[in-house]
């Protein structure tokens, strides 16, 4: 048999994020979408999944828990509250969770930076969209010279900020700031988010400011930034420098733009695309290791 082996995965949540994940998983060589579950049988996501021939249910995670052949990995694209309510049950069933909510039960993971440390964790958290876009750059600096302070400004199109983000905007700034410290390696982190309603919608843009603890070789720092951009591009092709980085002695400014792949979400919504792309990347790395170890889903 020449059929490639794949790991079975599931999606909880049939909103924009869950639906975009579905299209990304379709392209994967190592992931097989087993099911998509949600709470609204009339949701666009569940309908699309059913049309594409995937198993669907409006019984949410209960359906996965009761399933005779549950997936090995689930993506949780619901809410922090929902994730906190069901992550333990998933874990007890031996199902790995990739958490795209702000629940942050598991370690913060940014694939370009620290997936190698956490791929085997039963629960990993994808931080925030702003975190996925900026933490690699903070790390690109902190691996060359210690970073005393890392600050990011994420500007996203108003249309790409859903009601969940809007109702809990502090969660974004606080979680991203912690990610800049824990994963990016800055001693102190700060995050700012700006919503811009311009029409046509603006592409996600991020500015990363780092204050370094000492001097550095600008050429070495520039190489580190370029290398990190390439690493992120492996799973987010639309990730790029928006302008020349500015090195002002111990103050570094890096400008990033993220164009989405336009799977289910429009291309300007790079903020949503980088979350789903990072989550799928994390699942693929885990899947490859599981396949190598011979423990298929």
């Amino acid at each position, binding site marked *: 048999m020449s059929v490639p082996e794949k790991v079975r995965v599931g999606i909880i949540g049939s909103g924009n994020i869950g639906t975009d994940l579905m299209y990304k998983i379709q392209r994967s060589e190592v992931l097989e979408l087993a099911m998509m579950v949600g709470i609204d049988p009339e949701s666009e996501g569940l309908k699309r999944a059913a049309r594409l021939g995937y198993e669907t249910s409006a019984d949410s995670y209960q359906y996965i828990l009761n399933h005779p052949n549950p997936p090995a990995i689930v993506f949780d694209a619901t809410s922090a509250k929902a994730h906190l309510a069901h992550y333990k049950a998933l874990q007890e069933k031996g199902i790995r969770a990739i958490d795209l909510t702000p629940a942050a039960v598991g370690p913060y993971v940014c694939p370009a930076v620290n997936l190698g440390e956490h791929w085997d964790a039963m629960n990993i958290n994808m931080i925030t969209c702003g975190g996925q876009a900026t933490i690699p750059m903070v790390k690109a600096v902190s691996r060359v010279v210690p970073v005393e302070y890392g600050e990011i400004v994420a500007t996203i199109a108003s249309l790409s900020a859903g009601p969940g983000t809007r*109702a809990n905007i502090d969660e974004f700034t606080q979680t991203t700031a912690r990610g800049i410290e824990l994963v990016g390696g800055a001693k102190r982190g700060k995050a700012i988010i700006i919503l811009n309603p311009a029409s046509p919608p603006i592409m996600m843009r991020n500015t990363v400011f780092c204050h370094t603890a000492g001097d550095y070789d600008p050429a070495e720092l520039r190489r580190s930034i370029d290398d990190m951009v390439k690493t992120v591009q492996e799973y987010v092709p639309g990730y790029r420098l928006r302008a020349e980085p500015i090195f002002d002695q111990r103050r570094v400014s890096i400008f990033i733009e993220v164009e989405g792949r336009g799977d289910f979400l429009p291309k300007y919504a790079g903020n949503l695309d980088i979350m789903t792309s990072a989550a799928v990347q994390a699942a693929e790395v885990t899947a490859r290791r599981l396949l190598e170890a011979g423990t298929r889903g």
Partner: protein
Amino acid sequence: MQKRYVRITDTTLRDGSHAVAHQFTEEQVRAVVRGLDRAGVPVIEVSHGDGLGGSSQNYGFSRVPEERLLRAAKEEMTQAKLAVLILPGIGTVEDLKMARDCGAEIVRVATHCTEADISEEHITWAKKNGMEVVTFLMMSHMIDPKYLLEEARKMESYGADCIYVVDSAGAQLPDDVRARVSTLVEGLSCQVGFHAHNNLGLAIGNTLAAIEEGASQVDGSTCGLGAGAGNAQTEVLAAVLAKAGYETGIDLWKLQDAAEEAVRPILPRPIIIDKDSLTVGYAGVYSSFLLHARQAAEKFGVDARDILMEMGRRKSVGGQEDLILIVAQELAAERSAK
């Protein structure tokens, strides 16, 4: 007949923070608050220019932590209420807790005029914790009055006590102000306020127009010390409102003395309408971009006015100071390509 009361909030120690690149000292804050409080100014706002938690590389670091300035301000007050500003996306409820612990009684929650729904958690927290909530719909020249009312209704539903039409760019003409304020006054049951910038020389006139349309709260900054070409000058506003027959509770001479003795010595330069601040109003961009555009203009050898006009063309909103660096770089590259 009893005179109509209009509440003036002095924002010298918040909007003025932009004009001094957030370098206020504790002594300056004490002196200004003392002067304003003794003159009967009912509300005094103290915060980083971009609100609580605004101290940053993007907007400028505060010389003195906000907590210290707030405590100092509170200590000097005998009758005035202490207000703080917060921009969701920059400051958090944690910052708001800190401010309330320092004695802030009023919070002003500001969002871009189309993004009212990011203010719900901050308004809800403040109301639950006994604070008076004033909200700001910033850059209100960018949308029409009907759209502005829809956004204002969201803030009212979260519990706002007063909603301000904020002319952050100082870009509105008196008729623009009248249309927005009257639409909100008609469509809301809470109070309506107006916050001006003087970039087109209309701050006092626009504020008067807003009051005529029913605004019951307005902002000023003493000596006009605010972002861009400053705000409605509080001591001028108080005198104009007295002449126009409104009650503000402010002692004009004491306020003028405070302006001369406590604020004028702080001015880093006269707050005037020069070519750059005029361009802020003309282009319709956020007033606090002024100093950042000047700095970038110098660094990249371009004209600050070109940066500001381009920021307007790109439909930038408040808080996008980082885009100034990109625009300046691009303008410099374009010029060297020619």
